[in-house]
Structures are given as structure tokens and as C-alpha cells.
């Protein structure tokens, strides 16, 4: 192959030239500016909003409060006010807004708005929120509209729950010789993308709504705006531009409805709402917190037999995508292993914290932290090697039943191969060389992983390919570009299929929902698989039209035409060709007769044979593919500072790569992000529910000095037959093993078992004191001797 499988540079080279355009850079003439006012309480009744003074500020056009928008919006459940009505539900909740001719005037006026509150007791912990006497975040939950697969429990804080049942759990545990039971905790964290959310909206006199904003999925934004505001879909035009990072945080219902509604009230004037970093942390949904209660059993010869779990997600004030993440972790409640008896209940629970939504991995990194810790703890109890234990239980394509009782397709991938290869690359079984400093300890840790997109069973995609009269090609797809590189991979596929260089292919950086092909969303590592499959069909369609014309011209059958190097030639006579350019707009014979006409290929994708989960058991085929892999690390724990340094990180993915360099970029990025989440990241709240670290000073994302000394990755090239060139999704997968692998390596290094994230230095020292006090004594002793 000439283009597929090659590490060609990304096609979005404007990003290094400096003229890539983001929504952040977009302006419209006559644009006015909105500023939101944040509530200083986590839970409080709104008694009065006074804004007379604000209206007097020169340049102020309007002040809005919750009363101006008496309806609720939301993605799977309409649980969200446009601006808070009756009460505020979290610290930072927008309670009023100003629109003014300048941002300065809007900011000044916003400061003059006075809101009187009556504080209410907040509920700040998901377990507390589950208790029967907990304060209710949403008293009117019974009134909320919601998707049919979401099950809120009115009168409680439960936003949804999911039941997974396989086999008979009592029978499973009766067969178990060893059982481990633990509770794991992971805090709320931030997606930490760099482009703060911005949206510029205008309404036209014919009722058309236009929005330019920072989002992952233009068609999801269109659909949500139309549904929430009761607009016809074709009257909503969403413009997607380059996106400065999303990581799931720009996938759900964002803030587009706010400038749109303001523009409607202001006679269609373009309204810009741009968040600063702190506002972004308050107004944009973050990632949920998690409690995982798990009980897992195995026989003495190392066969997993039973897994019981109760998973509780802290969804914050609005549950956005988190209700679906509760489904995600509920349907994939354990690693890629076969277990006969599984019983899991998962819940998303409202609290008075920032709203939450998707984050790269959609709950799988989080559940695998707990599940892959369980695996190591079971292996330890069994006296078995953790890798061997995993290989004994790993899913076998074509044979095994997953936790949702799906028989894996024969070409599903190579879970065992990934585990073996990762073990080989980390030199599993060879103990790490211990450093000479007696307070430093090294260890190795392992974790296996899997994931497929969590999406409706009919999440569709489409593609359109237009041939131009110089043989170049315009490709219309709907998937967003947020750095993941899908459009480069799609261009490589076009180049390969048509035999034309990538330079002759344009996939415009902008997506306008009324001018590009539909795709459901840009999430779940589904883009390349879904949009890629649609694109291959579009290219097939185009090629069949090309063959038809060439066959007519050369008076041969269509199967006697082959397309290569941008030409259609007679098989066996490569000198008898017509260039694609010659037939792009219709082929003309020497006498002037023309045939064909402009050539346009179109293709569609819809996941095949996926099913809706059974509400009682979760039984389903929930995804069109799974990517399987394994990660392993070698860490060094410093018992003076409590710091953990990852020396070496290995990742193996079973899938082929369309562009190995871009896959490497995903792997390195996901590795650094995942390890940082394991060790440092946490949104902190005080006892009143105030978010304490809404900026990059106190919320520490990884920097260049924090990365592992060595990062190694490998793809096994085991493809799924219906995937484009076999390639399955990668973006989210690169996050999944790290918290578990690092925790397992710490246990291996110092014999301390950790059950909570992040594994910060103070936490590690505290746990060493509890679990291995003699180790600290030894360190102290050694230091004394050294003086």
C-alpha cells in the first residue's frame, strides 16, 4: 500500500503555519458580548435578582435571568436550566447574564447584579446523596423529560441506574476459592483542554439559527439545539472549526443555547459568549467522580467465576453524558475477561457540584483502575503471576461471551496477543534493577484493557466524495477535528483507493451541518471506524461510476477497468487509460458527445447487528467493535518525597494503524494524561462545595518534565474485517490501563495496596505508614547511617 499504513504528516498544516481558525478566533460584524454571573453557593434558593444598576452601564443591551427562559434543556435528561431558576445547584452556577456592546461593559454590569440567596444544605458526596434523607438536588425529577434508556428515580438523587446480570451470582461465589472485596474511589477531574468554550450565535430574519462554537460534534450540537429550543433541524446551522481540544468535555450539551437565545431576544444580533479558564471550570461540565464497590471471585486454579459490583458516579448538578457513562461502566464492568456470573448495579447520582460529562475513555479508565487492581489482588491471593492469571481468563474472539452475553465476533481482535506482547516489552518476570538509594524502590505493574464506542445501536455516519475537473477531490464528512487526526487518516484512505496523492485531496477544516455529510458524533473513538466505513463506501460508489464510464469508452466490461494512479485503465493494457480529470464533470468524445456528468460518490454507515441492552440484564451487542490492548509500567517510588516516577511505559494495541505516527501521538498523549490522572489530578472542593482549583495554577496537568523516561508502543495489526483497512478506534484506548498499571507497580515496588486516586505523595507516605511501617523505619535507618 502506498498511503495507508504510512506515517505521512497531518493534513492540518495550518496549525504550524499560524492560520488555523478556531471558534475562539471567529468574529462577526456587529457582534455583542455576553457575560454570565456565577452563584457563590453550592445550593441556595434564589430570593431576588436586582439589576437596575447593571442596566445603567453604558453599552448594556439586556440583562437576563432564569425567569426569561422558563424551560429545561439536556442531552439525555432535560435537567438543566438555561440560567438558574428558583435555586442554584452548584458553586458557580450561572444565575444571570448581561449582554453589552463591549465585553468591558458586560463585565462591569455583571458585577453590579445583586442576587439575594437563602443558603440550603448542599450534598457533596455521591454516597451521601444515595442516602434516603439526603437533600434533593432536583426535587422535580419526576417532571423531567428523558431518553427511554435513562431511568431516573424521582424523590431521590439518582439520575439513572443500570442493571447487568449474567449467570447466577450466588452460584458463582459458591464456586470461588478466593474472593477479594474492595471499594475504590476516584475524584472529579477536569478534561483540561486548552481552548476555553466560546460560541458566537446569530439568528436570521427567516428564523435560521447559526452558531460557531467550540464543540466536538457539529451534528450533535445541531440536534440538541433543535430539540431543546423546538426548532426545525434544517433551520439550525452549526459551524465546526478547528477545536482546541475536547477529550469528551465538548461532546454533550454545551452552552450554544445561551448565545442563541440571547440573539433571539436581541433581534438577531450576533452574540459572543467566551469563557475564561475559571468560568470554563464552572460552566462547562467536568468529569464525574466514582465509587466502585467490587467483589470478585476465582477458583484456586485461577479461573474467574464471579464478579459483583455497585458503581456510583458523582454526576454533579447536571448529569449530561454521565448518565450514559453509568451505562458504559455498567455494560463493561470488568476487564477483557470471561466471567460466568456477573451482577453489577451502576448509578449516576446528582450532587451539588459542577456538572459532569464525558471524558476520554467514557468511564473505562475509571472502572479498569478498580477492576485491574482486583485482578492483581486476586492473583496475589492465588499465588499466581498476574500476567498468567490474565491470560487464563482473557476473552477469546469467536468463542467467549462478554459481560453483556455477546459472543465476540471471530475477527474481534487479539486480546491475548496484546497481553503477551506488552509483557514481553516490559520484560515481565525480570525484576527491576533496584536503585542504589535505599529509599527508592522500583516495581512493575500490568493492566489489560478493552473498549468499544458507547453509542445508540443506530449511530450513523456518511460521506460524500466529489471529483474535480483536475482530478483532485473534495471530501465531505461530518466528524470534528479536535487534534485526534481522523481527517488525515481519511485522506490517506481516499489517496489509497483512488491512487492519487494526499495533496490532491481536500477535507475542509470547517464543517457546516447544512453542507457536509452527517455523522452522529465525534466521540467514543468511533470516527475512523464509522466515518471511514462510510467513506470507503462513497469511494466504491465513485469508482463504480468511473468504471462504468471507462467501460463504455473502451468497450469493455466494468470489471475489466482498473483504477490506479488517478486513472481508469483497461486491465492488462495500462496504456489504455482515461484520467479521472477527463471524466470528472462528464467524459467528452472527440465529436463533442458527452457522457456521465459530475461524479459524486456517496456512502453510509450504520453499526450492524448492535442491540439495545435488555433493561433487566443488560444483555446486548452494544458496540460495532472493541479495541483490545495492554499497558505495563516500571515505576520508582521515592519514600522520602512520596513521589512516584514512571520510568518506562509500554502500550500494545491489537489494531492496525492507518498512520503509525499519529497513532503514536495518541498513545504518548494518552499515556502522559493517564499517568498524570493516576498521580496528581483532582478537582478540589471545600466543605461548602466551592471549587478550589478552577485554573492551571492549582490544577496540575502534566508538563514536559513529568513524562516517563521511556514510552514504547506497538500495534499488532490484527484488524476487524469490516473496519477501514482493519483499523479500529484508538484515541480513548490510550488512556485506559495507566491508573491500574501504576497502582499495581507501586504495590509491586513497596508492597502497599492503593484503592484511591490520585496517588499523591502525601497519600503514599500515609499508606506506607499504615501498611508497611517497617519499610519507613528501614529507610530512616539507612539515612542515619549515611549521615
Amino acid at each position, binding site marked *: 500500500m502506498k498511503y495507508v499504513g504510512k*506515517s505521512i*504528516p*497531518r493534513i*492540518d*498544516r*495550518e*496549525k*504550524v*503555519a*499560524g*492560520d*488555523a*481558525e*478556531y471558534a*475562539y*478566533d471567529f468574529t462577526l460584524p456587529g457582534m455583542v458580548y455576553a457575560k454570565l454571573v456565577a452563584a457563590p453557593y453550592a445550593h441556595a434558593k434564589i430570593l431576588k435578582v436586582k439589576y437596575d444598576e447593571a442596566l445603567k452601564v453604558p453599552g448594556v443591551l439586556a440583562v437576563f435571568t432564569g425567569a426569561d427562559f422558563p424551560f429545561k434543556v439536556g442531552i439525555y435528561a432535560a435537567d438543566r436550566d438555561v440560567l438558574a431558576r428558583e435555586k442554584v445547584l452548584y458553586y458557580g452556577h450561572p444565575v444571570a447574564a448581561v449582554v453589552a456592546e463591549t465585553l468591558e461593559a458586560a463585565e462591569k454590569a455583571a458585577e453590579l447584579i445583586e442576587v439575594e440567596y437563602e443558603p440550603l444544605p448542599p450534598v457533596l458526596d455521591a454516597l451521601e446523596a444515595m442516602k434516603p434523607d439526603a437533600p434533593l438536588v432536583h426535587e422535580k425529577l419526576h417532571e423531567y423529560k428523558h431518553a427511554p434508556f435513562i431511568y431516573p428515580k424521582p424523590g431521590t438523587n439518582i439520575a439513572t441506574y443500570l442493571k447487568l446480570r449474567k449467570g447466577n451470582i450466588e452460584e458463582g461465589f459458591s464456586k470461588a476459592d478466593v474472593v477479594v472485596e474492595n471499594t475504590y474511589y476516584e475524584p472529579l477531574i477536569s478534561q*483540561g*483542554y*486548552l*481552548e*476555553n468554550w466560546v460560541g458566537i450565535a446569530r439568528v436570521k430574519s427567516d428564523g435560521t439559527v447559526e452558531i460557531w462554537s467550540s464543540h466536538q460534534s457539529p451534528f450533535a450540537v445541531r440536534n440538541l439545539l433543535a430539540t431543546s429550543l423546538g426548532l426545525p433541524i434544517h433551520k439550525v446551522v452549526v459551524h465546526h472549526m*478547528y*477545536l*482546541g*481540544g*475536547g*477529550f469528551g468535555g465538548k461532546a454533550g450539551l454545551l452552552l450554544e443555547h445561551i448565545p442563541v437565545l440571547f440573539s433571539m431576544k436581541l433581534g438577531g444580533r450576533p452574540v459572543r459568549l467566551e469563557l*475564561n*479558564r475559571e468560568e470554563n471550570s464552572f460552566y462547562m461540565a467536568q468529569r464525574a467522580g466514582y465509587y466502585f464497590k467490587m467483589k470478585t471471585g476465582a477458583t484456586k486454579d485461577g479461573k474467574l467465576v464471579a464478579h459483583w459490583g455497585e458503581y456510583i458516579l458523582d454526576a454533579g448538578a447536571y448529569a449530561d453524558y454521565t448518565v450514559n457513562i453509568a451505562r458504559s461502566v455498567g455494560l463493561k464492568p470488568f476487564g477483557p475477561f470471561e466471567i460466568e456470573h456477573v451482577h453489577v448495579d451502576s448509578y449516576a447520582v446528582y450532587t451539588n457540584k459542577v456538572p459532569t460529562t464525558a471524558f476520554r475513555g467514557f468511564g473505562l479508565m475509571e472502572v479498569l483502575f478498580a477492576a485491574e487492581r482486583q485482578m492483581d489482588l486476586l492473583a496475589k491471593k492465588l499465588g499466581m503471576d498476574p500476567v498468567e492469571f490474565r491470560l487464563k481468563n482473557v476473552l477469546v474472539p469467536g468463542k467467549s461471551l462478554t459481560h453483556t452475553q455477546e459472543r465476540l465476533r471471530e475477527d474481534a481482535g487479539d486480546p491475548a496477543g496484546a497481553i503477551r506482547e506488552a509483557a514481553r516489552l516490559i520484560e515481565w518476570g525480570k525484576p527491576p534493577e533496584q536503585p542504589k538509594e535505599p529509599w527508592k524502590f522500583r516495581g512493575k505493574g500490568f493492566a489489560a484493557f478493552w473498549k468499544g464506542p458507547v453509542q445508540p445501536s443506530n449511530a450513523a455516519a456518511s460521506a460524500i466524495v466529489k471529483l474535480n475537473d483536475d482530478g483532485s477531490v473534495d471530501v465531505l464528512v461530518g466528524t470534528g477535528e*479536535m*487534534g*485526534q*487526526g481522523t481527517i488525515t487518516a481519511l485522506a490517506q484512505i481516499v489517496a489509497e483507493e483512488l491512487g492519487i496523492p494526499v495533496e490532491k485531496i481536500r477535507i475542509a477544516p470547517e464543517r457546516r451541518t447544512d453542507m457536509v455529510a452527517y455523522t452522529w458524533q465525534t466521540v467514543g473513538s468511533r470516527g475512523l471506524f464509522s466515518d471511514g466505513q462510510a467513506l470507503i463506501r462513497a469511494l466504491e460508489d465513485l469508482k463504480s461510476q468511473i468504471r462504468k464510464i471507462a467501460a463504455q469508452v473502451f468497450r469493455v466490461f466494468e470489471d475489466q477497468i482498473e483504477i490506479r494512479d488517478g486513472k481508469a485503465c483497461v486491465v492488462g493494457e495500462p496504456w489504455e487509460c482515461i484520467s479521472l480529470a477527463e471524466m470528472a464533470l462528464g467524459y467528452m468524445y472527440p465529436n463533442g458527445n458527452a457522457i456521465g456528468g459530475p461524479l459524486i460518490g456517496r456512502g453510509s454507515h450504520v453499526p450492524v447487528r448492535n442491540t439495545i441492552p435488555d433493561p433487566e440484564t443488560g444483555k446486548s451487542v452494544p458496540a460495532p467493535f472493541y479495541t483490545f490492548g495492554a499497558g505495563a509500567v516500571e515505576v520508582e517510588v521515592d519514600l522520602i518525597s512520596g513521589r512516584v516516577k514512571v520510568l518506562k511505559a509500554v502500550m500494545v494495541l491489537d489494531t492496525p494503524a492507518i498512520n503509525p*505516527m*499519529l497513532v*503514536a*501521538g495518541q*498513545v*504518548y*498523549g*494518552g*499515556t*502522559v*494524561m493517564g499517568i498524570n490522572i493516576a498521580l496528581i489530578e483532582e478537582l478540589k472542593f471545600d466543605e461548602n462545595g466551592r471549587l478550589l482549583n478552577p*485554573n*492551571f*495554577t492549582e490544577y496540575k*496537568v*502534566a*508538563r*514536559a*518534565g513529568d*513524562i516517563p523516561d521511556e*514510552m514504547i508502543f506497538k500495534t499488532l495489526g490484527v484488524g476487524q474485517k469490516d473496519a477501514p483497512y482493519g483499523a479500529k478506534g484508538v484515541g480513548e484506548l490510550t488512556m485506559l490501563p495507566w491508573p491500574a498499571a501504576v497502582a499495581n507497580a507501586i504495590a509491586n515496588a513497596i508492597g502497599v495496596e492503593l484503592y484511591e486516586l490520585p496517588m499523591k505523595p502525601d497519600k503514599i507516605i500515609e499508606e506506607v505508614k499504615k501498611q508497611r511501617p517497617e519499610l519507613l523505619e528501614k529507610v530512616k535507618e539507612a539515612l542515619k547511617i549515611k549521615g
Partner: protein
Amino acid sequence: MAEKLIPITLKVNGREYKVEVKPNETLLFVLRNKLNIKSVKGSCYRGECGVCTVLLNGKPVKSCLVLAVEADGAEITTLEGLAPFGTLAPIQKAFLEHGAFQCGFCTSGFILTAHWLLTHNPDATEEEIKEAISGLICRCTGYKQIIEAIKAAAKYYKQDKQKQ
């Protein structure tokens, strides 16, 4: 109360701009909103993330922390200023060829900082590269390919130094 406007001169990418600014306006604000130079981004607005980095008289600064009036008379280079329009400087090419960017929002800050580093120290070690970019945040790449790109571009700066 009308705020006083101060006339200043900025030489950006070789071109001179005369512009009136308020005393509290940052260089970032003026570059983006008054001179329409959009390659310079803003994210944290408090000197933590470095996406607003520009070269001020040849040195990288975070333009969100510099007042426009402080930059009066200064020469400023942004990403567009590294190579003639339509071409890429070696450091830009290296970023492209090594996959050293993803979403691209931080890229301008990294490339300008790398350009400054290699101009002064084309023999920079991996540790020195990490040190030089430690004030910048990239949430996408994991830095590895950025470091590789900077290492790869070093040879062009060495050649330039030898020519001088």
C-alpha cells in the same frame, strides 16, 4: 470617565503598527483584538499555560502577562513571522514531520519557544529542551514528539550558526 488612550508603536513580524491602547490592556489583547493576529492564543490568562507566548525583542514572553504599553517600541515575532507567507521555517516543518501537534492550540507557543532555544543553543540536550518548554502546557501530545521535533530541527540552526 473616558479612559486615556496611549499611542504606542509595535513592530510585529517586521511590520510597524501604530496603535492606541488602554493602560490595562495586555499585549495578548492588543495583538489579537487590535492587530488581528490570531495565531496568538489565550487560555489561562495568568502565565501558566504559555499558549500566548510571543518573542519580544527575540525572547519568549507570555503576552498575557505583558502590558501593551510595556511593549512600546519592541519588536515582536509571532508564528506567522517565522517564514515568508506560504512557506514553513525548519522548526515548523519539523513539527509537521514529527507529528508534534494535535489540536494545535498550544503549537504557536511551542514553536516560538523552540525557535528561541535553538537560535541560542542549537546543541540543546533533551533536558535543556524539556526545561525550555516547561512553562508551556500541551494536553494532547504527551510532549514526546515535540521534543523529537525540536531535536530534529537543531541541525538547521547549527548550519545557520556555522554560516554566521
